[in-house]
């Protein structure tokens, strides 16, 4: 079993004003990576669609590397944790 971790896939400024459309584009991107609509739906943690475009998804290391190479992707970072200060 290959471990899946939450990764943030950052796509920069959103290309559409309609948030539904933005989220749909995130599903599509994950669908093409993972091969099935169900897997894409299950993997998606968040769709960032108001202030900018991006999503958080549970991905293996190799999936994260693969999606980082997609031209629309600015960067992919593993989820990290912050503390109260």
């Amino acid at each position, binding site marked *: 079993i290959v471990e899946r971790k939450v990764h*943030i896939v950052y*796509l920069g400024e959103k290309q559409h004003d309609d948030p539904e459309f933005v989220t749909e584009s995130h599903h599509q991107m994950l669908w093409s990576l993972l091969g099935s609509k169900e897997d894409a739906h299950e993997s998606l*943690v*968040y769709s960032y669609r*108001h202030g900018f475009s991006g999503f*958080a998804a549970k991905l293996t290391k190799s999936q994260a590397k693969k999606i980082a190479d997609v031209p629309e992707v600015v*960067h992919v*970072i593993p989820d990290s944790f912050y503390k109260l*200060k």
Partner: protein
Amino acid sequence: TTRTWDYLGLSAANPKNLLNETNMGAQSIIGVIDTGVWPESEVFNDHGIGPVPSHWKGGCESGEAFNSSHCNKKLIGAKYFINGFLSENESFNSTESLDFISPRDLDGHGTHVSTIAGGSYVPNISYKGLAEGTVRGGASRARIAMYKVCWYLDDEDITSCSSADILKAMDEAMHDGVDVLSISLGSDVPMYGETDIRDGITTGAFHAVLKGITVVCAGGNSGPEAQTVTNTAPWIVTVAATTLDRSFATPITLGNNKVILGQAMYTGPEVGFTSLVYPENPGNSNANFSGTCEELSVNSNLTMVGKVVLCFTPSPYSASASSAARSVKKAGGLGVIIARQPGYAIRPCPDDFPCVAVDWELGTDILLYIRSSGLPVVKIKTSRTLIGQPVGTKVATFSSRGPNSIAAAILKPDIAAPGVSILAATTTNTTFNDQGFIMMSGTSMATPAISGVVALLKALHRDWSPAAIRSAIVTTAWRTDPFGEQIFAEGSPRKLADPFDYGGGLVNPEKAAKPGLVYDLGLEDYVLYMCSAGYNESSISQLVGKATICSNPKLSILDFNLPSITIPNLKDEVTLTRTLTNVGPLDSVYRVVVEPPLGFQVTVEPKTLVFNSQTKRVSFKVRISTTHKINTGYYFGSLTWSDSVHNVTIHVSVRTQILQNYYDEN
């Protein structure tokens, strides 16, 4: 907050101040990303607060022990984000966890910081009689929207916040219409990633700032070591923590009648004259003795029972005091005096056990008394609140320091605000709360103080960009305390504070309202920054949503229009540019006053800036050269533009690197 705002000059009694001119920020919405909110707290009362601002599109989400009806005209937003946390903590049992799966606060931190930024007036509050006064936020009529992203992990007894959740909260906040985002969270140093944009808060903040939302973040609690400041992106307002002019003096009377004023939050009864001991081997015993606070448990009970114990620790942290108090109490002791480095984290000890901190100098006085007296005794009185002079302002030991470890030319922190022993609301089940109010310390507490000020400035100047607001705060900050006394930076040894301790200085809200000129920044400037920081053009184009070509040669990062000049690697000489925008009277003439850092020549051209109805923005050049022949540390100076009404001051920090990229240890 019973002292913060009067100390910073924002007294409600003055009818013509920023507070009253802005109706206490009634039209501003402060988004707080934190541990949630305790909605029953009186600080969220909406007495006298008008309708919700029309730009608000958010709402309140129901969940465990939280209904949307808990919201009102003060607390206008409450949402929670847990999916990132759950995905990374599969052992988390949301049914059994102590935390509330809702916007409700378990920790108390979110409620506390919300109070500081925008809590309503609640009179006659204290911590068991200490710090008594009226609790209130900086913008006490501003609206609060809580975005809960931090969750208590029962297994590990920690509270943790996933960047995936934080980003979602920021995304929602941008949609909801907040004016300020207050984020008292941070990562550890060294910072994640090779470049600053690859960080959750930084990424979200970039887009928020482009939408006109000021993002205020904690600089971190890893001081006093250099290069520990976090949240250092140039579009974020990064906050350091100072003390107030308030302390909790606790009289310690020795048997020789000498009275020493220690610091504590001791609210129990007076400890009458009692035997005083410093655990050390009298020279004729085989038993173990230790006078080190963390090692008091090695002493036999007989050494400490029925006595007040003196111990020493090199640590400034409150954990040493807690550990000492625990050991002495367990052994049947009656109190403990901890000689330590000032850490500015005075806390009550459990069960109101008398535990008083003194510095090493006073600790040594007590030790000499013990050694010279046949029967040393001591009396400890209840702590009392001391306000105003002679209590000076210090940058707290814990407050993270610059330089910025990612981009040394970007001065961080930006600004300082009180963040030590701040009394504000919490949950009613938090340890050490008194009727729902608690003292907390950290850059967490300084951050919402700045957010509150930003909310007021935003109410006064709705069209100002986040960079303009930041500039107004930084260029008008106090370099002294509000009474004109120097601010010291705590550490070992204590020293005069410099820009790496407190950025521009201590926030001066009244002056920030009318800065005269501002160092503004827009999208083009951020693009130039990213070009100079080495981002490739396609990434920048995607980030900003339009085609971008970096100039060739790239502009220097030194030209980024910050309200500070920091040159980390001067070899011969350098010339940089700044641009000022007039936000004061249309027809203004400003003249420059330079205080060059020692051993540097600073030349400004032109020396006079003339603004009128046609000329709102004017650039000037600064040439800096040095006579130093070695790799130096940082020297500090300043550059002020003055029209005799406004003084627009920035710090100039310069270090020579005659030998570049050289690790200076010999």
